């Protein structure tokens, strides 16, 4: 059996190597802002995947943290003139606090109720963002300065910004990988697979769930913060339930519970949206069709299917 899962891991390792090469080459081939947007969504989805993929918790309100992060980073950079890195950290901190409140309420119920509660609470965060004075309502926060990193690196230069975003992206992905492969991640997976047994073994499952929720929220907030610096804009779009649906889509399509799934999903979804913006076809309809097809035929997602194929081939040969 170990050879089979080794083969699956090998596939993902190859994917990581290809991804790293592509990350270096991308700004010279593609439009840098496009790749940076992609990294934001990939990190957002990786944070979301930490919950659903390893904790079995489907949050339908993750836009609350992504959007909160976006507003806070924008506010910190524009109004307070904070360093870009500090702005992103502030975004992550704000999302952590939001995540603590939302998570503490949501983990009081399980399964479908958990999803409905996160959705409802994120809608509440949306209404607060709509009415709060500092978010700029329908206009959002515009003209956010990218600033000078450590007062030295000018992030208005596209390649500088690209390097900054790549660094945060890689750090975030590493954090997710580290959490998943830590004893904490093992227990989280055990809770997902059999909560009653985890309780009987003496684990305080609520604390594990809440910790996972907060880590996930913090990373989602960082992703949102980076996005608002990249686009120099924080707006209501990033805090709507549609955005929560989008991160579910990215993860489902790429592969729930795989390390690279969120990245692959983000590449496809962001590229698709860019393309669909040029043709007159309704994006939600395509999104909906992908959801339906994924659920009916393709529940492992792209990376999940690849892993499955590799491990089946290995176990046939072995």
């Amino acid at each position, binding site marked *: 059996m170990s050879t089979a899962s080794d083969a699956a891991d090998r596939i993902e390792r190859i994917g990581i190597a290809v991804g790293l090469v592509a990350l270096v080459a991308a700004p010279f081939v593609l439009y840098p802002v496009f790749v940076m947007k992609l990294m934001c969504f990939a990190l957002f989805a990786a944070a979301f995947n930490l919950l659903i993929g390893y904790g079995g918790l489907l949050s339908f309100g993750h836009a609350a943290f992504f959007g909160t992060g976006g507003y806070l980073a924008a506010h910190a950079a524009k109004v307070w003139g904070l360093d870009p890195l500090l702005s992103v950290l502030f975004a992550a901190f704000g999302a952590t606090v939001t995540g603590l409140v939302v998570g503490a309420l949501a983990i009081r119920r399980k399964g479908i109720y958990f999803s409905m509660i996160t959705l409802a609470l994120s809608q509440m965060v949306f209404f607060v963002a709509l009415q709060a004075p500092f978010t700029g309502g329908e206009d959002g926060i515009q003209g956010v300065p990218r600033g000078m990193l450590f007062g030295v690196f000018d992030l208005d230069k596209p390649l500088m910004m690209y390097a900054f975003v790549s660094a945060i992206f890689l750090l975030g992905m590493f954090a997710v990988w580290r959490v998943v492969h830590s004893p904490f991640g093992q227990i989280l997976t055990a809770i997902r697979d059999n909560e009653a047994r985890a309780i009987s073994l003496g684990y305080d499952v609520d604390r594990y769930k809440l910790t996972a929720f907060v880590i996930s929220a913090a990373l989602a907030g960082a992703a949102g913060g980076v996005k608002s610096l990249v686009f120099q804009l924080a707006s209501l779009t990033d805090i709507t339930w549609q955005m929560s649906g989008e991160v579910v889509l990215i993860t489902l399509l790429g592969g729930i519970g795989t390390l690279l799934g969120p990245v692959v999903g983000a590449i496809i979804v962001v590229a698709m949206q860019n393309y669909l913006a040029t043709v007159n076809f309704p994006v939600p309809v395509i999104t*909906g069709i992908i959801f339906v097809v994924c659920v009916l035929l393709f529940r492992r997602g792209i990376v999940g299917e690849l892993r499955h194929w590799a491990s089946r081939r290995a176990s046939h040969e072995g």
Partner: protein
Amino acid sequence: MFGVPAQALYGQILLGLINGSFYALLSLGLAVIFGMLNVINFAHGALYMLGAFAAWFALNLFGIDYWWSLLLAPLVVGLVGAVIERVFLARIKNLDHLYGLLLTFGLALIIEGGFRHVYGSSGQAYGTPEELRGAVNLGFMIMPKYRGWVVIASLIVCFATWFIIEKTRLGAYLRAATENPKLVQAFGINVPLMITLTYAGGVALAGFAGVLAAPIYQVSPLMGTNLIIVVFAVVVVGGMGSIMGSIVTGYMLGVLEGLTKVFYPQASSIVIFVIMAVVLLARPAGLFGRGD
């Protein structure tokens, strides 16, 4: 009372009762479907919208009036629901419940996205039926006839649904099949058919609510989206274990929302979510729930 003119107070309570009527009808449908299929029907808002559009099409294409639509639109929506259940939901019934949520979310996006593409985000007007135009003076307030009708009609339909499920033989089968589908099937009852009919019936309630809503709100592709999220919160507050619980919670939260509009209007869009949070802290299973 508290410096608020009585007229405004009664007016908002009436508006709250109307919102509550929609919450009750929709959460009732969600509860009925959840009981039988273990699926949270994310497409419920889209099917509510479909009900309103069915009435609008009926009037503008075929000249079918409001009263016939009140009967026909739920049938049409129920039929769409039966197809959805047979084509999609029946295939995933053995999977984790979360997939049902994701699938119906996808269906909601398709239905709403399609209508939005054709009709845009703006609403279509649907006239109030002639018999219900004007208002009656109740002594303490002036009530538009149609608004009173919405409250009465939804109460009748809610209690009829309650009666069917709790007091008839069909309802007994339904409740039995919710508890133990295999055993009920072994007694010779066609459980798959019952599941299809339950889903169709649940979404027909949403379709009915859509027709009721058409003359009040405009008929627009997005009318169901934001409503369904609030209804989810209502469902969390009430718990889905009890039919009567869904109805009572729906009206209660509608009225509380109406009262918030009088005393603290800024909070009216979030009051139901706040109540949900408080209930989760105090009574996690919901007011009428039986746990997960």
